[in-house]
């Protein structure tokens, strides 16, 4: 492999990691605050993709901007779903069967709503940007992927800043790290969880919108990405947001470079294999590996 090949693979892995991080971060926030594995995440990503498509086709809104516009809509939808359904789940410190069943059922409902509204034909968002490339020296970079990557970084940056520098963001982290302590300092758990759930769904919609401009989609869209999100979250250690970034990078690197050895059609198998491997070898994720290294040092 030449240096140019290597560099362009590295670049495409990095660009892929950005969107992977955005699609996983919503699940992480929801898991962190409520210990609920959002199996319906894929369904909300699908909704986000269709929402962006509708905005693009009906109002000629730029698809990337449309993806951002889905965020507030999906945020409100997430808040409503929390208020109507999720709020009623009994509190638990680990995922429970009722929560898994509820979210899985919700996914099925969303999927079938998708078939009802948009039918089962493949759709895609096509703009002049879709096929254009920027040349950086000998390396050609897809403009669209670059734009999506920058959009992803902006979102992650905003989320991270919100979590660190606002009262409410701090209370979300407090609830993730120690629920008891959060309650005795006056955190309103239901309200915080509702907003966190809304954020998680907002990010799912945003990720769906961004992915929708990269890939074609149908109402079953998101299934393959859900599995990838699982891998990333497990790699990142389930409730840390910087962990998600690392997990996304690892998965993107593995997937991208595996193309050299394995046909592209087997990419999902790679994700699955990585998931199994991580669960067996490193159940605490990369963070536990770093902690171990620190102890030994």
């Amino acid at each position, binding site marked *: 492999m030449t240096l140019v090949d290597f560099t362009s693979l590295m670049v495409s892995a990095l660009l892929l990691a950005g969107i992977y991080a955005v699609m996983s971060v919503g699940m992480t926030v929801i898991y962190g605050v409520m210990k609920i594995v959002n199996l319906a995440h894929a369904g909300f990503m699908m909704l986000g993709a269709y929402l962006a498509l509708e905005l693009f086709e009906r109002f000629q809104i730029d698809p990337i901007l449309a993806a951002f516009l889905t965020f507030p809509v999906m945020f409100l939808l997430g808040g409503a779903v929390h208020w109507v359904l999720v709020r009623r789940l009994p509190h638990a410190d680990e995922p429970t069967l009722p929560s898994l069943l509820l979210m899985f059922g919700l996914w099925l409902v969303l999927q079938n709503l998708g078939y009802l509204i948009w039918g089962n034909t493949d759709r895609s968002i096509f703009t002049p940007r879709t096929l254009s490339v920027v040349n950086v020296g000998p390396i050609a970079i897809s403009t669209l992927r670059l734009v999506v990557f920058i959009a992803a970084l902006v979102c992650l940056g905003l989320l991270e800043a919100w979590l660190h520098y606002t009262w409410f963001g*701090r209370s979300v*982290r*407090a609830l993730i790290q120690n629920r008891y302590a959060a309650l*005795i300092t*006056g955190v309103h758990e239901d309200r915080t969880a509702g907003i966190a759930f809304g954020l998680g769904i907002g990010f799912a919609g945003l990720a769906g919108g961004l992915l929708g401009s990269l890939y074609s989609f149908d109402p079953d869209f998101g299934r393959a990405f859900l599995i990838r999100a699982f891998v990333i979250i497990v790699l990142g250690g389930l409730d840390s947001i910087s962990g998600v970034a690392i997990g996304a990078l690892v998965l993107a690197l593995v997937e991208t470079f595996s193309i050299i050895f394995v046909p592209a059609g087997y990419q999902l198998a790679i994700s699955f294999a990585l998931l199994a491997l991580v669960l067996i070898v490193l159940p605490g994720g990369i963070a536990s590996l770093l902690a171990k290294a620190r102890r030994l040092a």
Partner: protein
Amino acid sequence: MNHLSPTLLRIQNLEVCYGPVQVLWGVSLSVNQGQVACLIGSNGAGKTTTLNAVAGMLKAKAGKIFLKEEELTAQPPRERVKRRITLVPEGRQLWPKMSVEENLLMGAFSPGFRKNADANLARVYEMFPRLKERRTQLAGTLSGGEQQMCAIGRGLMPDPELLMLDEPTLGLAPKAVDEIFEFVRNIRSQGVTVLLVAQNVNYALEFSEYAYLIETGKITLEGPSAVLLSNQYVQEAYLGSA
């Protein structure tokens, strides 16, 4: 002096259960404004349960809790924080991956406290200069004594009317224990009312004005701390002197 200052906290026949197991069987106690009161007793007697019930973390099966004249029994924890009741819980319960300063700021999370947060932060740093030195450090990396200071600092951020300290010296080095009790002695001069729970009966009685002895979920003895300190039963059962 004590009987002249008004009652701040009044607990009436409080009963609390953990699932099917009843832990408190009609606890009644009151703490006067500006007083340092302590609740002593052995492991499992119901000390921590009492504090958690006052903080609103446990539901009362029967009985009532009043702050001044207002009944709080049915209020959630956040409403009690708003009324400036703070709990410094057993085992500190900090957020390990948040900085010392973030931990302290969370103490002023309730919207009414935010505008005074900076002033109260400065006050806490003045009280515990070591926290200021370590303000950007993650709370999980502090020593036990420093973590306890951080937990107390968090409890002071709302300018508490009632500060409840649950086993503030458990597992600390002797020097840190002295520092914490020195703090308890100083905090009363700022007009904060303290309800202290401690297994270290000697210290607790020495640093408080009024004491309650709790045994298997009931108050079995109460009185000025100096009186309990010389009480023969307390001496034999809790101070290890025959």
